[in-house]
């Protein structure tokens, strides 16, 4: 957004978090700049939530340095709490209260003067389009509405940074798109830093910078465009009569790695697919049954670095318990 302003609002240095022998966060270092949208992208169990919880003072670290707005997370907890807004991965609204009451309690906790509280509640509710339902019990809300209300609540005390931990988790695609629209709108209308996480690759494209995290380590950190540029061209997927033979042939003419993909297809990268495909079809030693080409996505970046698809991951027992609870609470 603002190129002159390169102040770091969050600085994380050699952060490690261990849970009884398990290294959930394994020596990560990164910074978040003021007023940017920063994204953490990685599969389930990568350590995204753990890192966020440490930054927002909910969890203590095993070792490393973390500061937010110049405050130390271990020593100046209340100062940090005052300037962050949180949207947790798991629901945290009181569903027996109305939207307005949830905001009212939030206002009390953050010491917002009563006179300002009413006006601000209206403002944030308007922003996420919940004004007409402000007096309904949260119990009667849909999953997407609850998420929007959580975003509104996170903004009520005008935080400098808003954390959004998997803001679209468990929502249907249409609702997910809407949530992202609200987040983009928010970024346009306010000077605010946004730190979000997701395991949906395509969703983090709105970020100014993305850290790809896997097994507790940051394996890449750059703008979405730069990350995709590391792929170096287009992705081609082919179904043929003899994959083994074709693989050797392609390796020979392009010099690039060829991987096995789903449904018995093979997959590789070329600089320029529009000139490559006609040539291949003309000269291929085996019969090609189908061929497709597309621009690289962040998913390909992840695949490229780790050799795995981001969504293949199985949830741990702990995560599946959380998911069950979440489903029960959200719907």
């Amino acid at each position: 957004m603002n190129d002159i302003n390169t102040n770091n609002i969050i600085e994380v240095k050699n952060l490690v978090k261990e849970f009884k022998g398990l290294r959930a966060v394994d020596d990560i270092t990164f910074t978040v700049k003021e007023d940017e949208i920063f994204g953490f992208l990685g599969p389930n169990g990568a350590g995204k939530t753990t890192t966020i919880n440490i930054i927002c003072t909910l969890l203590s670290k095993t070792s490393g340095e973390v500061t937010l707005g110049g405050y130390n997370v271990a020593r100046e907890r209340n100062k940090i709490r005052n300037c962050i807004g949180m949207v947790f991965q798991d629901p945290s609204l009181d569903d027996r209260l109305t939207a307005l009451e949830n905001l009212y309690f939030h206002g009390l906790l953050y010491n917002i003067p009563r006179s300002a509280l009413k006006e601000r509640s209206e403002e944030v509710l308007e922003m996420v389009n919940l004004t007409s339902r402000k007096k309904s019990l949260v119990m009667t809300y849909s999953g997407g509405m609850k998420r929007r209300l959580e975003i509104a609540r996170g903004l009520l005390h005008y935080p400098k940074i808003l954390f959004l931990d998997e803001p679209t988790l468990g929502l249907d695609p249409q609702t997910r798109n809407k949530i992202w629209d609200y987040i983009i709108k928010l970024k346009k209308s306010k000077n605010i830093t946004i730190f979000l996480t997701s395991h949906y690759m395509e969703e983090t494209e709105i970020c100014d910078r993305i850290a790809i995290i896997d097994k507790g380590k940051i394996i890449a950190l750059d703008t979405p465009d730069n990350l995709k540029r590391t792929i170096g061209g287009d992705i081609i997927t082919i179904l043929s009569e003899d994959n083994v033979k074709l693989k050797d042939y392609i390796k020979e003419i392009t010099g690039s790695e060829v991987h096995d993909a789903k449904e018995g297809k093979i997959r590789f990268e070329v600089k320029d697919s529009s000139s490559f495909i006609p040539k291949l079809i003309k000269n291929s030693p085996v019969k090609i049954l189908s061929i497709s080409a597309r621009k690289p996505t962040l998913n390909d970046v992840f695949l490229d670095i780790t050799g795995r698809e981001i969504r293949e991951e199985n949830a741990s027992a702990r995560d599946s318990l959380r998911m069950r609870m979440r489903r029960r609470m959200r719907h």
Partner: protein
Amino acid sequence: MKKELIGVYTIWLRDIKRYFRDKPRIIGSLGQPILFLFVLGTGIASSLSFKGGGGGDYLNFMFPGIIGMTVLFTSFFSAMSIVWDREFGFLREVLVAPISRTSIVIGKILGGSTIAMIQGAIILLFAPLLKIPITFTVFFKVIGIMFLVAMTIAAMGIVLASVIKSMQAFQVITNFLLMPMFFLSGALFPLNDTVKWMNVVSRANPLFYGIDAMRPVILDNPALQLYPLWLDMVVLASVTVVMSILGAFLFSRQE
């Protein structure tokens, strides 16, 4: 300081609001004491009188005990809700807010105690059915005792909630702590001339002092007390203070 007080108030107010919204819970939680009182109590009373044990008074004797039971269970479970609230609910939102863990614990103890006191007061309204006269003075005295007992139990609940994490442990606590506390409190039978070990163990049970304080007041009969009222109150207050401090410490340490 003012911020912390507002924090305590917020946690308390939220518990109270939730309580009054949940009508089925209010009615449901009255089921058990009423069952105890009118089915178990009546049954025991009639069999005692059948044996010529002067059982007509048994229902009266049991009545303060049932109030104690209501306060015990309500207060304890309200405080324990801090366990799952922490993982999957509103409490996470409170935990990132700029207020101290101690305020959260105090708010939670006060919230649970207020609800338990209200539940106990509802049972107290059944007194006329048992032909127990309740004057205004008695009513407010009992309210005060109930609130103190509830605080003691809630503070104990917070301590346990801070060391116990799984839901399974919950069932264990109910069976191996709450039920014995109820049985060995003097709620259902007097604990001055039973088996010796029972007498001894009951003195380590905070609810025992609560019942001992309430019974003479409700039944307007000083002869029923084992210890003077002031002593019961001092014991309860001391346990409350110790448990609250321990609870606040354990809760702050936990993550």
